[in-house]
């Protein structure tokens, strides 16, 4: 019998199986668990709660159910003792293929039914945030392929072992691998329970679906390779595994197919384009080893963003018309990009890319010819990859139809600078509003092909950050400070209903009143406050700029008075950094001293004034004390002699953990202790005001502010602030 006639027979037979209907019903019910007990993403946004969590729950539980059914079905004929008869009628390999194909078909039907079943509820809950494409994309990116993979692995394990319990055990080991700590934060290892850190409502990105499709492709190839291999192991003529395999080898093409699929899966894994292939930890680079930077007369950047492919192509021109000295240049470029052309004065220039991936970028080395001036042109293109140390929060370098986020070497080559003008031209979808180097771009040309080309003069030689999304910008004054507040258009109602503008003004008023005017008070320089994707996690501040991930401004956060410090703090914290950081008073980073501690303390004071002492105690003082107590009890904190014996990687992780507690909990608690010792909040405010006035950048000769400086200002000693 031919494959297709057997396939039809298997389809009909399985359709009559009550066991199959039971499995399908359970698979349809499985996403329900994602709404409550089995929430697998860390997401707090609507698309995470109503799409990611149910789809992932359905994917994982369904995959296990399909595997159980597959193993039971594979063993059925052997169990009934009818395999001898069926083997005489049809080739066991073709029968196995027909059964697998029928099972895969039923899993496709179940996926379609599942997606249709939950569609009305999801659409109703998400209202205007709902996108049918994104919703269906999740089912067909995660659920269907994972079920395929599970069925193929289950069938393969059974055919190799021909023992139901061994097949179950091998499958269980593979499941355990996917759930283990080894695979916990790894997109690629989690074959059964795909990793989605979070989604974004305001700045939708298909980046997680891209990774999802890629990881599913890897595991599908591996599963298919194993399945082809298992076809060779199907028992023939009552022979054992080895002899059956030896006979199976006569069909060499199956072995070749198996090897090809397995090799393709491994190659895809090894060469994945999403994260660089460098060290796992952040590497401090010694730029003094780099050749001196040759200053260009001007730099001209032309970038074209391709959101369909998620790629970028760029052309950078460095004008060396007044330079003839020649010499080596070492430039950093994102590891996902490849250089397509380098020319100097119109002639091709040889270059090297040693492939030294560090912190998400690689080197491009070239030598400018001596005695010749001209324009150096570098052309590059590719899919931007993320630095490994950021893993698994990888959406910092992302190009999508509705959201673009790029930094440093993912925008253009870095480590080149200019004495003259620097122009950037960026072509991208017309619906996006761009921000370059923390400033809005204003000038554009409509290309009438669905894109616009935005042009700006950049203050620095290289491009640091680039965001683009469907933004709305409000401009207003907070005291004397001009504020540009940019947020996703989808949050327009939320921002208005919760009077976020007034909340921002309150923070600025508090800091101005308690510490002094910020350097933006002259009204010339604006301060940009920007909401970014929930997928970026956390917040960030730099000179004249604050950003928060979108959950900070989500309706859930703003409407829930019990939300606590986690999200609300980020909102205030990043604004307070305009006083406590390099563009205000900059603290020297020491074990127990940094800008963060001062900022956290000020945030606590603002929250106390706004929500009351009880609230501030619960979400700030008590939490700091809890963190400090935990740290005090940690074995390696108590016994540094054992800490030194730990492996380097583990030591680095503990150091990072300790640094975080020291700066974000221990230090603010020490400042709180200092506040009590100096005579209360008013006295401490006076000290902080004095510190800010004397040491902020308004006094350009000031040195970095140390812990000892703080102790001197308070007239205290280290021992006074020692925490039990």
């Amino acid at each position, binding site marked *: 019998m031919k494959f297709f006639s057997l396939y039809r027979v298997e389809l009909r037979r399985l359709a009559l199986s009550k066991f199959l209907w039971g499995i399908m019903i359970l698979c349809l019910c499985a996403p329900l668990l994602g709404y409550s007990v089995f929430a697998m993403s860390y997401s707090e946004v609507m698309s995470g709660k109503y799409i990611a969590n149910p789809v992932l729950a359905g994917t994982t539980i369904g995959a296990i159910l399909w595997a159980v059914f597959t193993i039971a079905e594979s063993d059925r004929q052997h169990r009934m003792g009818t395999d001898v008869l069926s083997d005489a009628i049809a080739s066991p390999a073709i029968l196995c293929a027909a059964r697998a194909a029928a099972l895969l078909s039923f899993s496709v039907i179940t996926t379609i039914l599942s997606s249709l079943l939950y569609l009305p509820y999801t659409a109703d809950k998400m209202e205007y945030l709902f996108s049918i494409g994104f919703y269906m994309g999740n089912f067909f990116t995660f659920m269907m392929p994972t079920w395929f993979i599970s069925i193929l692995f289950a069938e393969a394990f059974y055919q190799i072992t021909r023992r139901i*319990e061994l097949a179950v*055990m091998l499958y269980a080991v593979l499941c355990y691998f996917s759930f283990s*700590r080894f695979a916990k934060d790894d997109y690629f290892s989690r074959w059964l329970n795909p990793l989605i850190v979070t989604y974004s409502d305001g700045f939708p990105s298909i980046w997680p679906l891209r990774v999802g499709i890629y990881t599913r492709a890897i595991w599908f190839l591996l599963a298919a390779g194993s399945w082809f291999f298992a076809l060779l192991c199907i028992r023939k003529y009552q022979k054992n595994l080895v002899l059956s395999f030896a006979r199976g080898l006569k069909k060499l093409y199956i072995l070749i197919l198996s090897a090809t699929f397995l090799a393709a899966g491994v190659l895809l894994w090894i060469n994945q384009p999403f994260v660089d292939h460098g060290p796992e930890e952040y590497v401090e680079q010694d730029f003094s080893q780099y050749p001196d930077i040759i200053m260009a007369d001007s730099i001209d950047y032309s970038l074209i963003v391709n959101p369909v492919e998620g790629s970028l192509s760029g052309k950078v021109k460095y004008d060396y018309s007044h330079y003839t000295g020649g010499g080596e240049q070492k430039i950093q470029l994102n590891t996902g990009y490849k250089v397509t052309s380098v020319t100097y004065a119109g002639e091709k220039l040889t270059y090297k890319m040693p492939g030294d991936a560090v912190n998400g970028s690689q080197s491009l080395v070239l030598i400018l010819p001596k005695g010749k001036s001209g324009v150096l042109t570098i052309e590059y293109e590719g899919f931007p990859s993320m630095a490994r140390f950021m893993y698994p929060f990888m959406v910092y370098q992302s190009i999508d139809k509705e959201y673009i986020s790029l930094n440093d070497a993912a925008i253009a080559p870095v480590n080149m600078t200019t004495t003259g003008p620097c122009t950037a031209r960026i072509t991208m979808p017309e619906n996006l509003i761009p921000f370059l180097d923390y400033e809005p771009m204003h000038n554009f040309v409509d290309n009438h092909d669905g894109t616009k080309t935005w042009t700006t003069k950049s203050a620095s030689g290289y491009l640091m950050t680039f965001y683009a999304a469907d933004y709305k910008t409000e401009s207003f004054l907070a005291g004397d400070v001009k504020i540009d507040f940019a947020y996703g258009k989808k949050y327009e109602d939320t921002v208005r209903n919760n009077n976020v503008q007034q909340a921002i003004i309150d923070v600025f008023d508090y800091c101005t009143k308690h510490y002094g005017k910020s350097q933006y008070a002259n009204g010339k320089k604006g301060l940009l406050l920007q909401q970014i994707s929930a997928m970026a996690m956390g917040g960030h501040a730099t000179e004249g700029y604050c950003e928060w991930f979108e959950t900070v401004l989500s309706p859930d956060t703003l409407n829930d008075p019990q939300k606590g410090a986690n999200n609300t703090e980020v909102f205030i914290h990043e604004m307070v950094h305009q006083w406590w950081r390099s563009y205000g008073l900059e603290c020297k980073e020491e074990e127990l001293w940094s800008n963060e501690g001062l900022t956290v303390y000020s945030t606590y004071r603002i929250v106390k004034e706004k929500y009351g002492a009880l609230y501030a105690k619960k979400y700030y003082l008590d939490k700091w004390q809890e963190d400090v107590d935990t740290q005090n*009890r*940690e*074995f*390696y904190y108590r*016994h540094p002699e*054992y800490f030194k014996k730990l492996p380097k990687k583990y030591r680095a992780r503990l150091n990072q953990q300790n640094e975080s507690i020291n700066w974000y909990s221990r230090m603010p608690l020490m400042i709180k202790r200092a506040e009590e010792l100096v005579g209360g909040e008013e006295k401490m405010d006076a000290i902080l005001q004095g510190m800010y006035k004397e040491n902020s950048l308004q006094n350009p000769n000031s040195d970095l502010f140390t812990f000892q400086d703080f102790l001197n200002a308070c007239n205290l000693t280290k021992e006074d602030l020692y925490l039990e």
Partner: protein
Amino acid sequence: MNRIFYYELKRLIINKIFIGLLLVNGVYAWYLLTTDIIAGIAYTAPFSAWSFGAYLGKVMPFSILTVLFLLSFYYSKKQKSVEILTEQTPISPGQFLIIRSTALLVCFLIISILAIGISLFFYIHFWEYHKFAGFLLPALFILPPCFVFAVGIGQLAGRIHQALLYLLMLAAFAVSFSDFNGAFDFFGAGYFSSYPLSLPFDAFGEPAFEVSMEFCTARLIYFTGGIVLFIISISISGKKAKKA
């Protein structure tokens, strides 16, 4: 008797499945030590009795799964078909059960010795720690109750229906993933990870190794419960043989 025991033992140990599972147990043990136990459990030293107890508790699910899997050999269809023959031998079904359980005990001991050996190597290699006498008590609290109860309930389940053994394996797997940390925590990892947090600590910041009376009682209940279940299995198999 000795010959049968030797045969049963050989059947279990000289078996690629057992060797494979032993290797998996070893790899898992090392993985646990280097990723989890290395941090120290409940703020205690990684080489404290608490951390060692938690380690054994975390290793146990895999060891018990291995034992239950080996036990399933005795209740397979093939085995049942030759039972008619073995029942004709002068050895009673109860004696057979004891012999097979002793063979399982040897397998369990081999797995436990491997897991403990790996941990001792880990302690010596990383911390140059040699005071292992303190590990005896946690080992006594974890190993015998887990083995006796698992084999007791496993023998009874297998005697009723082989599928129950697989359900039992699934239950063991599920229990190992649960967050339960009370006195009745079967594998003990949750208890050893949480109970020291409630204890006062000495001048060096380490809580003394003192388990609660409830925990001792629970371990005793598991141990005696296992023996009772085992005796019930013997009695069922005896009655079955008489009927036959």
